[in-house]
């Protein structure tokens, strides 16, 4: 992961977004991951989503743990602060950062080793605490950076590159996120940009704990015939629950679909999630139904993707704590220090 400066030159006719930035303004350093790595597609999708939403790049804080996935925040949003923390501990660092300043957008990037094994506890607790964040797991079912060990999301019976068969049950992070009370849960595939970009946009707009499990094939160690997280396998077994379009507040709703195939969910910030339903019986705001869909498709040997669950009116940690609207890191001496007189009263109470 050496630092590679990118040329700053722009094509003069590059399209700009609502705040006058081009897609290039959302890029980072050149990726040093393997050619064809699913993670690079996810980085590209993050760039596209932030560009589409016209987010000022420096108002995003990108945090990660350790592993191939956790290296990726270097490759997008170069104008944003990033924090490549400790293996499995991104969620706590992100929680602390969010406590310090509720006004930034928090994007946590993790992997299946980082979140399902060493960091399973922190993943769980950050979700159940309702930290306002977008938590993306770039899930390749393998330890890439240490060269091909099974991860806790490796499917039962999947075969490692060297021939070992996995006998441990896999952890389904999306199912667990639903159970833990995540207010936004989606799954997608790094090879399906049309599905992934709107899901990232919706997650970024969601004002609560948004979790995205993105299957992201590892071309070096987990893209062979015995793998259940290879490009071929996922393409063959991908069962999309729905297709999503995002409509921002004040934006004219132009797209139209045949009645009965579509459902709309308005999020707290006014954005509308328009879902073209592919499973007629699933209501994305029904947590129990979400759990059922995941289990049902798993039993059928399919990988369920799309927006699995959303609570359009989530409460986040700051609301639960009852903190002031201003970022805590912006409070000064006057707001924080009770002063000498108050201290005298404390002293008097201790005599």
């Amino acid at each position, binding site marked *: 992961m*050496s*630092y590679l400066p990118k040329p700053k030159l722009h094509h003069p006719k590059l399209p700009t977004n609502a705040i006058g930035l081009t897609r290039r303004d959302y890029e980072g350093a050149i990726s040093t991951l393997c050619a064809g790595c699913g993670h690079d597609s996810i980085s590209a999708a993050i760039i596209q989503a932030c560009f589409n939403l016209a987010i*000022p*790049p*420096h*108002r995003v*804080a990108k*945090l990660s743990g350790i592993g191939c996935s956790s290296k990726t925040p*270097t490759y997008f949003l*170069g*104008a*944003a*602060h*990033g*924090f*490549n*923390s*400790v293996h499995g*501990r991104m*969620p*706590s*660092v*992100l*929680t*602390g*950062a969010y*406590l*310090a*300043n509720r*006004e*930034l957008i928090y994007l946590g990037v993790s992997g299946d080793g980082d979140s399902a094994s060493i960091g399973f*506890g*922190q993943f*769980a*607790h950050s979700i159940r*605490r309702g930290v306002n964040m977008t938590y993306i797991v770039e899930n390749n079912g393998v330890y890439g950076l240490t060269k091909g060990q099974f991860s806790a999301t490796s499917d039962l019976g999947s075969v490692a590159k060297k021939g070992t068969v996995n006998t441990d049950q896999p952890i389904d992070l999306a199912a667990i996120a639903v159970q833990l009370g995540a207010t936004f849960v989606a799954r997608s595939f790094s090879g399906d940009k049309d599905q992934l970009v709107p899901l990232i946009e919706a997650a970024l707009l969601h004002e609560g704990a948004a979790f995205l499990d993105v299957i992201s094939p590892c071309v070096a160690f987990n893209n062979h015939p015995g793998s259940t997280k290879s490009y071929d396998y996922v393409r063959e077994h991908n069962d999309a629950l729905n297709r999503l379009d995002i409509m921002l507040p004040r934006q004219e709703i132009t797209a139209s679909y045949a009645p009965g195939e579509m459902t709309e969910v308005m999020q707290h910030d006014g954005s509308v999630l328009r879902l073209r339903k592919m499973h007629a019986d699933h209501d994305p705001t029904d947590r129990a139904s979400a759990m059922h869909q995941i289990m049902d498709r798993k039993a059928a040997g399919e990988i369920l993707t799309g927006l699995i669950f959303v609570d359009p009116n989530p409460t986040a*940690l*700051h609301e639960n*704590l*009852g*903190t*002031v*609207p201003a970022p*805590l*890191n912006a*409070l*000064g*001496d006057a*707001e*924080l*220090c*009770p*002063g*000498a007189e*108050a*201290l005298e009263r*404390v*002293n008097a109470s*201790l*005599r």
Partner: protein
Amino acid sequence: MPQPITATNDFVVKFANVNGSGSASANGLFAKSILRMGVPIASRNIFPSNIQGLPTWFEVRVCEAGHMGRRGGVDMMVAMNPQTWDRDVAEIEPGGYLFYDSTRPMPKSKFRDDITVIGCPLTEITNNAYSDPRQRQLFKNIVYLGALSALLDMDVEAVKACIAAQFKGKEKLVPANFAALEMGRDWAQQNLSCPIGLQLKRADAVGDRIFVDGNQAAALGAVYGGATVCAWYPITPSTSLAEAFEKHCGRLRKDPGTGAKRYGIVQAEDELASIGMVIGAGWNGARAFTATSGPGVSLMQEFLGLAYFAEIPAVLFDVQRAGPSTGMPTRTQQSDLLSAAYASHGDTKHVMLLPEDPAECFTFGADAFDLADRLQTPVFVMLDLDIGMNDWLCEPFKWDPNRKMDRGKVLTAADLDMVAGFGRYRDVDGDGIPYRTWPGTHPEKGAFFTRGTSRDREARYTEDGGPYVDNMQRLLRKFHTARSLVPRPIAMPAKDKARDGVIFYGSTSAAMREALAALEAQGIHLDAMRIRAFPFHDDVAAFIAAHDRVFVVEQNRDAQLRTLLVNEEEIDPAKLVPVLHYDGTPITARFIQSAIADRAAAANVLPFRKATP
């Protein structure tokens, strides 16, 4: 039988109770009543890791002269726990007093003939007066308080004032407690010879001092120091620090208009998450801390290396207890010094502050946040169970009204527009401390990637040896800078010229001062130095160099401060004589005095003979 001990305003009373029996409240009233009479006390809880049914003790040292350490020895035992009867009786000084519940007859063999035995039928008195079992239990404690007030000639008005204060807001409970108090007092006056040789007399020796525990004080320091984020995991003996922060903030830190909180407290899932949150918040510009104890510090090791290497401010209150492992979780020690000072893998060093009492817990509790921001590194405030969980009589908290937070080298958007260039890890000022920016500051400038992997001065990832060494050397320079920023050691020269010195720190200080006076009375003169921080100020090495031999008094087995002195100041180990107390009870003046006197006598045979013609 030796003469019964006679002493006024200078003795030790110890209460032996069963935990969960409501005795703590009555014992606290006893202690506070003495303070209200203007007589200083030092009180200590000795309690088990348990909620109900195990032995617990409360020791009150009455000392008009103002010694705040444990003295050692017990002049009067209030023996309310049959489980510990034998050891409690054995602990009484010859000529001392035993107060016990005489409702059930005890065989003569259960007593000693060199002490005064005072029986009072507490159970009988309360069973006759109350029918409710809970009342019988609770008021029994107040009844013995009443009996003691007569035996020790306490000012009953002082006791009543304390009861009234205790039940402020629940005034209807006051008359019943007064009645129980009088019941015990009347019985003692009618049936016992009151007062006994141990007596209390009104004095004016308390002054404006306050009576508070170190955890409360440190938490208040965190409020005054501007901490806004607290992430913690419950662990004895630090739990009450985080809880006190919440309590203080509830009173002092809410938006007066809306009641919204100017603080965020998260009880994390473990200590790893606690320190992770603190580091995330520190990275993002909030003042953040955690409160923990030794096992928690062990769990935080990996993260502490990150904070050291990535240079992120963090404050940790380590309320030390007896280790290793679960050790004696409700007993005191100073045994986390090494694991805190060198926490984490690789080459690391961390700043530690060593408060001596709650007053300093408050001051250092606030100072730690300025230091952490200024130095961009974790700062440990090393309390221990003795300071943290016991009420100490100490100087009132002080605050300079003109004081402002020192947020250290943080560049704002306006700064970034003015400076020629920004490199996160450049040593612009030669003090080893770089400039930082908070996330979200500027649309184009000042963003950088924070990582635990090696990087160059511009915060770019590199595994080249040159930039790595450059960075590690700068971190050393920064640590050297810390020497002049942390609290200076305090020297206490002997009255006469002294060849030997003594170094001590933290909760040992009160007992040490008393021991110094006693040693001086014995003709053993020692220059003393109280160390208040790590890294060590230059004064420390100079002090050691100026003496033939320096005793280092600590409450751990392995002489951990001595190890730091040898290691960091390159002191000849032979010169530093360890004096170690680590059985989990607070160190006593008697222990220090005898340990040093023995060694001084053994080594100083010639000078003593010369001095005595």
